[in-house]
């Protein structure tokens, strides 16, 4: 019986992985096929590749390094507004790039708050434009995300362990060595990889804050190859380079990672006796305070810019919001089906095959949306009108794009579940839907909710593959926002952006909350 469940979930996981492969390597192949092969790269292109890799590595390293103390502080402190803060900190990650750029500039720009304060104090204002501007923006986007994922790791350490540690008289240093470091060694490499890959596909932010063409990434070169040169073979080659970056980075990270299972507990609220000292309390307060200040500054500016007009938005924007809501609902469900089946397959396959499936799950972040859109167009066009399929395609692509994030949340949780309850389930003969109902879903609730929340928030904000698939009758909120910007209506765009962020956060909150109901069983 148990064997059958295992085989079934492995097949489902393999099917999901195959779909992801079709969307990434398949679309890339379709573009290359349409172009009769891959083009060649010039010396400038290699410069772009190098720049892309190193700015992404630096962005990811800084984001993760800063996220660890913030996550630790959030894990061991309870305070009023903590869960609201954690939810709101998810916002930067889902901001449309133009909105994020303007929000960051309102704080760190030439006429931003920081420069105002500096000049008031008689100091020279700082310039954000340059590599430090890119790093600042990428940390702004990804620090909260890294914090959330690492915090998830901390919360997966059962309360019983900390109780035991306290009764054995562990100091904070002992707890770090015995409980926290093994968890970090397991979680951090994956988080680093996800953020590294996100940053490799950045282009509008990198260019605008990098201060000019010295900050050119591979994605910009792909964009140029498509829109201006219509050089599909070069676009395909650049797309392949991005996938290779993903594969190499993935291989390195999987080598470093030390999977660990912290065991299972009864999901009680964690009390941290070892961290009661004043110094540690101050240190945590400082970490949380600084992170909140850094992230909430630009967010507040976005709220201030948009709040005035948000209740006067035209009906068409509300209609677009409605379209976005149901596209989001569909893609979230799809994404969770893919993610859960892949996570179960990863936990049941041998470590090599499991790593392969997990690795495939990362591919969609590294895949260029432009290449994916064009490849889909090439594949669909001979059989159907791509425009009439724009919404289903958007839903599937959004689900695939959010998959790596949902997997980050689910894979460790499923592995813990298998390690902790696998044998018991087998001995009880629990399998199939009964197993899902009584064992998997209750144990995975928190991870499922968090994963779905991430998927929902991302789908809401994603422009996806509209360049070739936009349907004027069915406008989504990000598309409407983009059009307002193009029509000089920047005030209304600011309000639409606020609506978008609010909806994204709401979607995240609903899913995440759903996962935490009755958590102290």
């Amino acid at each position, binding site marked *: 019986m148990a064997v059958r469940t295992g085989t079934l979930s492995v097949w489902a996981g393999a099917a999901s992985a195959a779909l992801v492969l079709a969307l990434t390597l398949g679309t890339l192949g379709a573009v290359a096929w349409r172009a009769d092969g891959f083009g060649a790269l010039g010396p400038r292109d290699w410069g772009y590749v190098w720049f892309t890799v190193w700015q992404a590595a630096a962005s990811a390293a800084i984001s993760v390094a800063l996220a660890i103390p913030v996550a630790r502080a959030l894990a061991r402190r309870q305070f009023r507004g903590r869960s609201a803060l954690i939810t709101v900190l998810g916002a930067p990650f889902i901001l449309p790039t133009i909105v994020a750029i*303007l929000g960051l500039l309102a704080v760190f720009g030439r006429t931003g708050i920081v420069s105002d304060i500096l000049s008031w104090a008689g100091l020279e204002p700082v310039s954000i434009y340059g590599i430090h501007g890119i790093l600042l923006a990428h940390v702004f986007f990804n620090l909260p995300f890294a914090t959330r994922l690492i915090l998830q790791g901390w919360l997966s350490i059962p309360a019983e362990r900390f109780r035991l540690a306290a009764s054995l008289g562990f100091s904070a240093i002992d707890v770090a060595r015995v409980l926290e470091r093994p968890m970090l060694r397991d979680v951090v490499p994956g988080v680093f990889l996800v953020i590294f890959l996100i940053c490799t596909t950045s282009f509008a932010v990198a260019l605008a804050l990098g201060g000019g063409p010295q900050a050119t990434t591979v994605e910009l070169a792909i964009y140029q190859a498509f829109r201006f040169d219509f050089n599909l073979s070069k676009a395909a080659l650049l797309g392949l380079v991005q996938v290779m970056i993903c594969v190499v980075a993935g291989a390195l990270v999987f080598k470093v990672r030390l999977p660990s299972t912290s065991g299972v507990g009864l999901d009680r609220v964690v009390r941290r006796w070892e961290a009661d000292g004043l110094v540690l309390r101050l240190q945590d307060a400082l970490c949380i305070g600084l992170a909140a200040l850094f992230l909430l500054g630009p967010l507040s500016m976005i709220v201030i810019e948009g709040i005035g007009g948000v209740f006067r938005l035209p009906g068409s924007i509300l209609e677009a919001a409605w379209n976005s809501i149901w596209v989001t609902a569909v893609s979230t469900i799809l994404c969770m089906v893919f993610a859960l089946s892949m996570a179960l397959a990863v936990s049941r396959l041998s470590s090599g095959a499991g790593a392969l499936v997990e690795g495939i799950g990362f591919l969609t972040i590294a895949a260029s949306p432009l290449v994916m859109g*064009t490849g889909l167009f090439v594949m669909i066009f001979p059989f159907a009108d791509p425009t009439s399929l724009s919404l289903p395609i958007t839903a599937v692509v959004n689900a695939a794009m959010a998959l790596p994030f949902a997997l980050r949340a689910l894979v460790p949780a499923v592995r813990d579940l298998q390690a902790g309850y696998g044998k018991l389930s087998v001995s009880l003969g629990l399998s199939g839907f009964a197993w899902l109902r009584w064992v998997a879903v209750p144990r995975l609730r928190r991870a499922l909710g968090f994963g779905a929340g991430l998927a929902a928030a991302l789908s809401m904000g994603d422009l996806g593959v509209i*360049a*070739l698939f*936009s349907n004027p009758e069915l*406008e989504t909120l990000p598309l409407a926002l983009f059009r307002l910007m193009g029509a000089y209506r*920047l005030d209304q765009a600011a309000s639409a952006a606020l609506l978008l962020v609010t909806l994204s956060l709401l979607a995240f909150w609903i899913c995440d909350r759903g996962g935490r109901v009755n958590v102290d069983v």
Partner: protein
Amino acid sequence: MKHLTLAAGLMLGATSALAETPVLTVYAPDYFGSEWGPGPAIETAFEAECACDLQFVTGDLMPRIMLEGSRIKADAVIGLNTDVTKQARETGLFAPHGQDTRALTMPIEWTDEIFMPFNWGYSGFVYDNTKITNPPTSFDALVNSDEDWKIVIQDPRSSFSGLALLLWVKSVYGDDAQAAWEKLAPKILTVTAGWSEAYGMFTDGEADMVFSYTTSPAYHIMAEEDLTKSAAIFEEGHYMTAELIGKIASTDQPELTDQFMSFILTDAFQTIIPEGNWSYPAKLDFEKLPETFQTLPTPPKALLYSEEEAAALRDPALEEWLSALGR
């Protein structure tokens, strides 16, 4: 069950009604699909006289045309940019527009028999006239100015307006273009991928000037009653861009497409352009323009490369730009 049958019946009825109305499919840039773009008004105006269903399919034009090739589903393509028509022409998909373009209200003569302009505009630097009271009156004055102005421009590799600026500098400075870019470089605050980011940075006060169009202030005057935005007019002349329409040779609605082509040059279409697109109509008498457009300052000379020149100059000019700014 009854409801289902009823619904199915209604849908069948709707489909057969639609089947009798001829459909004109026009590929258009994304802004056409927007409620704030010219698309909806054009659709209403044309459908009032054609007894047809005009459908705009929006998105990136050139990639779509090239991908669909001879199996293209459009009857016409509207919104092609003057600087990139060479590739479109070489597809061989387009038929002569068949319209008389001798009486266009554009600063240049139009002799192209394939592509026909429907709007046009001058590129230009837009500034806040409450902050800059001594705007540059020539490109040279801007490049050599001692003022610490900070300008945002768009990247010519990802934006049509960025490409227009690249060609403008090339047409003013020729072989000295790279030197001009090097002198301009300290004034360039940053380069953005698209027009929207740059314009947003300007209206948020981050930049003193933005590269846009000389007609941009018209939006602020007419829609926001804001008189603080002006375009600097340069003695050397301004690079202009026009947006074009082309008829697809393989259309299965040739008469209807021709009807649309001639509708483009009528007042019914042309009067939609100023406020739908914030640019000049290709054929509309000066006194029929909105008052604000009549009062906008205009440059002494229009500069425009032919598509062959633009295509030949683009790569070398881009190399100069990258060398000058990419440090």
